[in-house]
């Protein structure tokens, strides 16, 4: 049995639980599978999305950034900042934004302002996200400037328009479970992860990080699983544009220059809330940044067996692993 655990569990904060389920009327529907068609959700469906997917996105974001800020090198750099800016592409009801904001208020309570631009085509989802942000402000001493970008992506030209409009640089760029929808609806030609990374990564500040996260199911249109498609697209992106580098998974960071494999990377998060104990979320994600910055914060680690997923209690490892020492590819604090 491995001593390294890549699963992570948390409980939704009580105020957030009460607000989304009791105030906003969110519904938890465990059988509800609609992540690929969020743009078309009706208001009622958005409430179901809010009850089912929002807590999961919150958890994923909370855990990912909690791990990141627990890294002393990263923390010491971020501590010098007085302002933080966030872009969320396909923000939906804003679970990942609230997760990140919670971490920022925990680790950087003296920030002067946090600026958020939330881009999504579903207006009902954006309205819910705005209400949740207003509620979050009551639990956070940092001023938050929250702007919505209510635009739908019909094709590549729309992304390019958005690229032109959004001229700022961001400390965090997020896209959680949004690119799968662009793929399902065939909105983007070519590999959508590569395309989005190409467009959004240049908008990172010198110390900015982009996190692309998606579901791990198979899509018949692309003939493979989303994580494999993501890893393929992002490897192309990184090979073509040498300015950027992977931070997480650590195995990709270490071997991406010469990697020939298309791995199925997956991490499991569990969230407990008033409607469900240990609701499971399976996702694949990649965190990238500018090469110099990534080199500055990456911990020293030797070779080992890099865990890239856990299935039925059994770990899978990066094919380039060497030795017996198990390393959690998703943990920057090894």
């Amino acid at each position: 049995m491995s001593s390294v655990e890549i699963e992570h569990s948390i409980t939704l904060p009580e105020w957030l639980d009460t607000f989304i389920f009791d105030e906003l009327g969110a519904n938890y529907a465990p059988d509800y599978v609609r992540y690929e068609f969020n743009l078309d959700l009706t208001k009622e469906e958005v409430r179901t999305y809010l009850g089912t997917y929002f807590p999961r996105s919150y958890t994923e974001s909370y855990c990912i950034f909690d791990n990141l800020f627990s890294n002393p090198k990263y923390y010491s750099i971020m501590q010098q900042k007085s302002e933080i800016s966030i872009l969320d592409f396909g923000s939906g009801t804003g679970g990942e934004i609230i997760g990140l904001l919670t971490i920022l208020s925990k680790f950087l309570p003296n920030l002067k302002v946090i600026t958020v631009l939330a881009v999504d085509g579903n207006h009902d989802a954006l309205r819910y996200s705005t209400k949740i942000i207003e509620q979050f402000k009551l639990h956070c001493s940092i001023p938050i400037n929250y702007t919505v970008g209510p635009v739908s992506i019909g094709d590549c030209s729309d992304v390019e328009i958005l690229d032109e409009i959004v001229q700022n640089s961001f400390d965090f760029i997020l896209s959680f479970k949004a690119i799968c929808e662009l793929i399902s609806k065939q909105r983007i030609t070519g590999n959508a992860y590569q395309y989005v990374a190409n467009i959004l990564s240049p908008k990172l500040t010198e110390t900015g990080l982009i996190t692309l996260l998606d579901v791990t199911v198979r899509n018949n249109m692309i003939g493979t699983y989303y994580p494999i498609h993501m890893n393929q697209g992002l490897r192309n992106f990184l090979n073509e544009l040498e300015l950027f580098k992977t931070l997480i998974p650590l195995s990709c960071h270490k071997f991406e220059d010469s990697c020939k494999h298309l791995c199925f990377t997956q991490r499991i998060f569990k969230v407990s809330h008033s409607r469900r104990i240990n609701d499971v979320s399976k996702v694949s994600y990649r965190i990238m940044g500018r090469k110099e910055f990534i080199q500055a914060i990456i911990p020293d680690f030797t070779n080992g067996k890099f865990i890239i997923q856990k299935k039925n209690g059994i770990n899978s490892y990066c094919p380039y692993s060497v030795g017996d020492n198990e390393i959690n590819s998703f943990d920057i604090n090894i």
Partner: protein
Amino acid sequence: MEDEFFIDYGKLDQVQRHFIDKKTNKSMVVTGSAGSGKSVIALHKAKQVSALGSYAIIVYTKTLKKYFSDGLKKLGLANVYYYNEWLKIKPQVKYLIVDECQDFTAEQISEMCNTGEICFFFGDTEQSIMSFNGPLQTVQDTANHIGVMMEPLYYNYRLTKENAMLAEVVGKVEDVVEKCVRNGEKPQVILKDSVDSQLDEIVKIIKNKSLSNVGILMPFNTKKTANSRAGNMKLSVEYVKEYFTQKGVAVEFKYSANQDTEMDLDFHSSNPKVMTWWCAKGLQFKDVFIPCSETTYEEQKRTAVYVAMTRTGERLYISYSGKLSSFFPEPTNGLYASTDEIEMI
């Protein structure tokens, strides 16, 4: 132009406005509730594409064309037609911009598409009230017809939340309040013992408050029509115009009993404008009066009342005699300003 529209183009939601601005190489369908800035965006879009190729702008009525004339002049736009005018010419253009597209039938939309290489439609199905020529095409169907996604406008800049709350109930429309960004006074409900007393009260309010941007919106054009359809000739633009004239109150009016009585509205004048709910479509006033709200209308007129109510940028006055129409909540409802609130105002 911004003063006239209450909506400063530069203050519209930045991300979405820029997004719409940048789309010039493919057709687009923009929708938004009353007061979301559709027409302002449509005109700026027209200005933008006018530099890129031939263009035509179609608005539904002659009144709307006149209403827009200042804005159009300021933007240097010339090729503007009201529908019947356009129909006679049907110029082939690269860019076609159609405002209030929800008031056209599928055939009319199709016909328009045939004359424009790239078409921009602006409309709101909730305000679809001109079904004289047959069933109208929803904005969503127009988007489907030309094979694009509908771009809904996110905010409402004209309506105050207070007026929107009442409009939602009357129009049986959802989510208008959520889109509003402004607060204002609650609508006032005015009870008087007759239609004439209501009109006297309207004159009094206009004078006491020195109101200079007023719409008085009626259900019928002429006394004859009002009499034959509702049994009360006073529910007409014609009657209100005559009553005000007798009282020495100058008004702008528009109804088409005959050429002698029809007048083109002068939107530069500060005189109150009297017209039908339908004629007010697409227009905006700071203060809107809806007299004769005791009258019970058939359900189909609900949307027209909603359209009339949503013409206001500031204050809304609902006057009635006897019992308020069932379209409206009871006069004691908290959606209306209370007597105390009115005194404070």
